[in-house]
């Protein structure tokens, strides 16, 4: 891969990253907080590509004089002392252009052409529900509102570790996607990220009452319901799955932020 090709790949990579971060595409893969860094990194990649092309395609004149220039290189006009000349910055430029750079086309392809969806029901079925021991023992009271909107993660933690005490008789409204439960019945799930989709793990909720039916997996729904003390088990990691008594539900379009 020569330098011009490298420049093109860097340009594509930078462009793909910028495009993903100015649209909402990046939210499928990483946390929202990474956005400014993504934009900055994308701009730097584009700058590196442009500078490379500029130096490559510029008239050749200064090049012939190169070895004598630069106080930091070896003695001027002393070609045999190549060990002085080389290792200037220790990054192995020159004729050994990295062939492995071709692989950088793959993420470009992934971002520009394929743009895979956020993790959904398949990933949820492969991993165990991600509720681990609670960070806090007291859960603050739910905010105002009827029904009150809570995240799947919050509801599950309150239902499981607080035995629903802080939920009480309140009506809650949750948003998640439909996935297959242990016995084939639909469950409500939401993926939780700590950094990127590679560490995405599902939080699963069993459903009783007016269970949404007839929806394919990965459909997004908004359910309204109440706490129930029923518990199930996730066969993948043998963890407890709390349940929600559904009163009503409606299908919604896929939200912008698909991860909790």
């Amino acid at each position, binding site marked *: 891969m020569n330098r*011009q*090709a490298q420049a093109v790949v860097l340009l594509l990579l930078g462009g793909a990253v910028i495009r993903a971060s100015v649209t909402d595409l990046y939210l499928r893969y990483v946390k929202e907080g990474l956005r400014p860094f993504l934009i900055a990194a994308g701009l730097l990649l584009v700058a590196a590509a442009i500078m490379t092309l500029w130096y490559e395609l510029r008239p050749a004149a200064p090049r012939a004089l190169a070895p004598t220039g630069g106080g930091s290189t070896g003695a001027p006009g002393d070609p045999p002392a190549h060990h002085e000349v080389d290792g*200037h910055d220790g*990054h192995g430029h020159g*004729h050994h*252009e*990295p062939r492995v750079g071709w692989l950088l086309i793959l993420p470009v392809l992934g*971002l520009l052409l394929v743009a*895979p969806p956020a993790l959904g029901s398949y990933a949820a079925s492969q991993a165990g529900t991600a509720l681990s021991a609670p960070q806090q023992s007291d859960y603050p009271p739910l905010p105002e509102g009827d029904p009150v909107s809570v995240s799947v993660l919050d509801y599950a933690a309150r239902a499981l570790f607080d035995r629903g005490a802080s939920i009480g008789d309140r009506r809650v409204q949750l948003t998640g996607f439909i996935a297959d439960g242990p016995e084939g019945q639909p469950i409500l799930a939401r993926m939780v990220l700590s950094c990127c989709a590679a560490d995405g793990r599902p939080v699963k909720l069993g459903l009783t009452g007016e269970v949404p039916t007839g929806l394919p997996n990965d459909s997004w729904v908004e359910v309204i319901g109440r706490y129930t003390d029923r518990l199930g088990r996730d066969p993948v990691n043998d963890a407890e799955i709390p349940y929600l008594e559904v009163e009503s539900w409606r299908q919604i379009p896929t939200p912008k932020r698909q991860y909790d």
Partner: protein
Amino acid sequence: MTADTDQAAPAGEPEGRAGTVGVATEVREPAPAGGEPPRRWLGDRIGSVEVLAALLILLIIFRDPLAAALDDPRLQTWTTVFVSIMVQAVPFLVFGVLLSAVIAVFVPRSFWAKALPRHPALAVPAASAAGVVLPGCECGSVPIAGSLIRRGVTPAAALAFLLAAPAVNPIVLTATAVAFPNNPEMVLARGVASLVVAMVMGWLWLRLGRTDWIRMPRRPELDDASRGRAFWAAVRHDVTHAGGFLVLGAMAAASINVLVPERWLQTLADNAWLSILALALLAVLLSLCSEADAFVAASLSQFSLTSRLVFLVVGPMVDLKLIAMQAGVFGRRFALRFAPTTFAAALLVATGVGAVLL
């Protein structure tokens, strides 16, 4: 071998060897490409740009079949995980490369040699400490260590730097703190364990190392006409080089993520000793960038903190892409001895530190 001979030898010998290799290659290779900047479109390497263009056109034409082929949920999940690892790592990679290019181009060449103590045994901890303030991922530190040796720095110190720089620099430690919000002691443990391994390996090299294991191929650098040119060339080269290896690592990580059933890891995680060994091997296989590996370690939540510490200490020092790069920069004889020894040292030290601190 005394410390003195070790210090004296590298200045002459490896360079002499590198020289003979270098002269030979220089006559053969850069000569055609030698008049570099107007890289001729009809030269021997014109292929790349055209190949790239053709490839991209083909990909756009076959976009729909491609998307259809990725419809399988397993493949789709693989793609999502792969893309997300890349997206998440790109800022770390770019900023690491940028800083290493700044240091490589704008810090005077004599700086490191002057900054390090004369006595090699003292230069080792000094070089390890230098690694702490030098951000960059392991892909960047291999060539830097190579050029340090070329400039007459004792290999023991350069190797200590090689191991310390990717493992305990500010970016990596910050990333570790972000990834383990509930276990701040993880940051300390990672720093301490990695520093200790780096110094142990440096001193071990003073005792047992032989300079003729190191054979440095000639690397025609940019004979910089300008610092700007050298700087951007360093950025371009490192992003393509390290980025390419990062893609490999991301593909491996995505495959492990999709293919290895969680129950498997669960069984391994239940056994304290097995889990340490398993994560040490996983670190080698995954070849994650040190700036991103903390997040993967954090997600391996079924494993003990000690085994995840081993993962974080081994990963930046020994992994598949590093072994390949070390073989490229220092020669195969070196890599074959250095990598397994470092693996053992990192495994032992990290387990010990984990037992004490975590």
